[in-house]
């Protein structure tokens, strides 16, 4: 790891100012993802602007309009354990409680979870070629590539799979990302937060240098929501989900009137399935409609030889997320 300077602003605004005025600086939160990258010298920042002392960013609160604000420095353990989150955002709480391992959950933050870089083994070690790190092509896609964690959508250039299992939940809840830079704060709709991979583009988000995530806002709802989450993981702890899926829908008392379906670990960025949503609307939510929604989602999948099994897993995750939503109601 290259030596770096460690600065600890006391709030989000100061952090944004520091980022604006410092060359080659990166935001540091829990460091779970960032320090690994730095040890491998995939990233070599001169300065870390740490949020560890930033006030207020470690809170979850219900806002006046009933929306919920989650600070960027809230840990996964907090999401899993705190009453507000458990009560109002059960799927988020559930996803957070299953992620990583108990130790990691106490360190890992929401902001870092959304901004974490891909876990692709090629990306994370400098001796491998990698399109995202500026190489000409993606070795995972090439003959001989190890593909078992690869994505099955949007993988024409880069076959990575977005590792966050909180992201699909945030997506399904129409979360907005609260982003701050030296000029002020802005709200970014969840779907607009992500950037598809490109040559030399390491980050999967549209965050620009100098910007910091202050928090995530979940808008209020006045109608009954059905929410469900499901994931499939090979190992119970210290591992990522192979596939995760979060759903939210409303009904007219019987049939689905609107639906939101998001997947994690299937594409380089969190993936919404409009095909699944369309398939669900107008049906009575059941395993049968879930199967149809899964089939329609997967109709456009482009799995690699080694990641074919994720097609089946994606369908099962969707079926189980929908079943969980029905059960919770």
């Amino acid at each position, binding site marked *: *790891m290259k*030596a770096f300077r460690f600065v600890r602003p006391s709030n989000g605004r100061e952090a944004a100012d520091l980022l604006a005025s410092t060359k080659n600086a990166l935001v540091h939160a829990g460091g779970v993802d960032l320090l690994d990258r730095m040890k491998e010298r995939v990233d070599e920042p001169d300065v870390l602007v740490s949020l560890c002392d930033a006030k207020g960013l470690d809170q979850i609160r219900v806002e006046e309009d009933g929306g919920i604000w989650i600070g960027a420095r809230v840990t996964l353990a907090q999401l899993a354990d705190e009453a507000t989150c458990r009560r109002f955002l059960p799927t988020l709480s559930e996803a957070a409680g299953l992620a990583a*391992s108990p130790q990691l959950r106490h360190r890992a933050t929401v902001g870092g979870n959304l901004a974490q870089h891909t876990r692709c083994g*090629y990306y994370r070690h400098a001796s*491998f070629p990698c399109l995202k790190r500026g190489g000409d092509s993606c070795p995972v896609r090439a003959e*001989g590539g190890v593909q078992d964690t690869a994505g099955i959508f949007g993988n024409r250039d880069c076959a990575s799979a977005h590792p966050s299992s909180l992201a699909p939940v945030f997506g399904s809840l129409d979360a907005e990302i609260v982003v701050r830079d030296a000029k002020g704060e802005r709200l970014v709709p969840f779907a607009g937060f992500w950037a598809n991979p490109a040559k030399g583009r390491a980050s999967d988000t549209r965050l620009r240098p100098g910007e910091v995530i202050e928090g995530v806002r979940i808008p209020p709802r006045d109608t009954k929501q059905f929410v469900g989450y499901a994931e499939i993981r*090979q190992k119970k702890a210290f591992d990522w989900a192979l596939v995760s899926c979060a759903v939210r829908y409303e009904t007219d008392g019987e049939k689905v009137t609107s639906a939101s379906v998001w997947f994690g670990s299937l594409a380089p960025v969190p993936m919404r399935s409009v095909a699944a949503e369309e398939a669900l609307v107008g049906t009575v939510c059941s395993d049968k409609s879930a199967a149809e929604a899964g089939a329609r989602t997967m109709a456009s999948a482009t799995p690699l030889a080694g990641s074919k099994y994720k097609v089946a897993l994606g369908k099962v995750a969707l079926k189980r997320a929908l079943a969980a939503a029905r059960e919770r109601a």
Partner: protein
Amino acid sequence: MPRRVTYEVGLIGHEEAKQGVEGTEQSLTVEVEDGDATPWARDTKFAYVGTDVTRLDGAVKATGAAKYTYDIQPQGLCFAGLVYAPHAHADVVSVDVAAAKALPGVLAVRSFAAATATYPGKIVAAVCAESETVLSDALAAVRVVYAVKPGPAVTEDAMRAGAPVVDPRRQTNVSGPRRGPTMRGKPDDALAAADVAVSATYRTPVQTHSCLEPHGCMCHVHEDGTATVWASTQATAFFANGRFTRALGVPRNKVRVITHHMGGGFGSKFSADEWDVLCAEFAQETKRPVRMLLDRRMEHLVGGNRPDSIQEMALAGTKDGIFQVLKGQTWGTSGNSSGGGAGAANFMVYDLPNLSMTQHGVATFSAKGRAFRAPRHPQGFFALESIIDAYAYKAGIDALAVRMKNDKHPIRQAQWRIGAERIGWTKHRHAVPGSDKGTIKRGTGCAAGRWAQAGRHMVGRSPLVFEFVVDKDGGVAVQNAVQDIGTGTRTLIAVLAAEELGLKPHDIDVRIGDTRYPPGPGSGGSTTAPSIGAAVRNGALRVKESLGGLLALQWGVDEAQLTWKGAVCHGPGDEKATFAKACALLGEDGLRVRGSRRRNFDAAYRETAGCQFARVAVDTETGVIEVEKVVAVHDCGVIVDSLTARSQVNGGVIQGISYALFEEKRTDRSLGDMVNPTFDTYRIMGIEDCPEIDVVLTSVVSGYSNTGMMGLGEPATVPTAGAVANAVYNAIGVQVTELPMTPARVLEALERRQK
């Protein structure tokens, strides 16, 4: 004069399981040399042996007070690190170390420019620096130019005709077959004539040792010309070899090697490695203490691995379940060595009148394999035990019954019964595999294990002796250079010494892991405990003799008239003295005596037996397997400390499940480098995935030595993968023939079944 002793050996207790099994108890006559304690028999009454004794070093390990190599940080400590090749096969065109050398704080640099790198992890440069930060910058500043050449890094690619060869003197990467001892009868005729025959190809992955404590050492050359080396090694006695001491510039007799605590070796840490020699060179050159420990990536690349295997097997037998023939061919890679160690032990345990097993080594452009907990066994037993289940289903006979019919080991016969009872075999095992209803299907399976290590009386060419130091206050210290690699060696020594002297184990001061004491055996092959056990007893015996001599003198009686009962010595009349009282007769210098290990007897039980049963739940929609319970029944001769013994079995089972479900070195077949050399990408089973593990120890007086002990570390991991695989087969009705059994492979197998 050797004395002839006839005594009862065999399985202690477990009366019900022994019923009707011949040979679980025997009478044995042995010639016992002078100075060797009278062997313990099946009915010997013990104070501590076979009971639960907590670890002597439990508290220091739990609090962190235990010092490992990394923790030893003398003033002025310097740090060494390595630059290594990321390619399977490349010429090292140039190594530019100028920028690294120029960095302030860099003390020494080595480069190996002329080399060809024939595996990822091949060292091309090494740096020694004053701080870890400078070291990291210096390593990053070394510029290496490689000319990359084609070089197959995985077995199947290296086997292809025309593949580039690892050893330029050879035409092909495939060596063997090695036939000799694994050929008998007329296998082809038997196969053709058999009632029931099955065949299949099984595959196992390259598994890395993944020791938590990395390989390496800290070398400290002192001003007086002596040196202390703290090493993470399984053999303090062999660490400071000629190459190492020459690099250090200190003669062997002045080098002290210390391994007080060790964080895992599993067979990969038997002598000073290349990087240790570099560390020694740096220590000599800089005249400062230097530490070199591998990074995690290097651990995975070169720190050792278990060869993979491809095993084509055919098994046939009668319709009532008697095996007639096993025929097979195997291939596996032990990296860029000529193929040694790549075989699979897949023909042992059962009676096989006809056998043909041809085994091939395959050289690949990857670092050498190393001995790994039960070399050749977990892979071999996975295939052997899998094909037995296939045969049993086809013959329509219960798979456990088939095993019991073909297994002649009396102890394992008893163990099969014990295990079956504890897992609930008759209740849970499906006669028709895959017949469980629902999405989550459960299944039960079993597999056998074996090992055969009774320890030795020598350490290399030196006799194995234990030194006892007794002071006049009654304090007892036991000294030998043997290391405790986490298995509980320290505690075991204390139990044995305490048993013999009538003291408490935790009162014994066990001084080990230090070459200033008499040489100790390497911790490998599950030989450590059975080697040292008998020597500890003999040392304790010397102590009693010496103290007895003093008492006899005081009491004016003949030494031969004394008897010891626990810690009390009795004279022929009503004279008696406690151990402490006897010690009070010693002078200020106390007592220093040695007991030596004698040759093994011609034993009654030459192989240890074991078997395991597993119950799993398989999610047939996702392919995820959960192991719910494992019953592990193991014999290791006489059990000394049942806590540490159980701990060994727990560890063996955990490592075995990890092998069955998770671990796999993944290599990019074009680039030739490992893509998962970290603990978050190289999956290893963690605590949340641990099943209930029910350990049953069957203590057996083997007859090998005065203790009757045998080894346990390795056999405990032999049956696990096979038992889990058979449970999965029983659950889903189809075999997953390749380890690890990932969701992708399970789903693939289920798809095959539907077709």
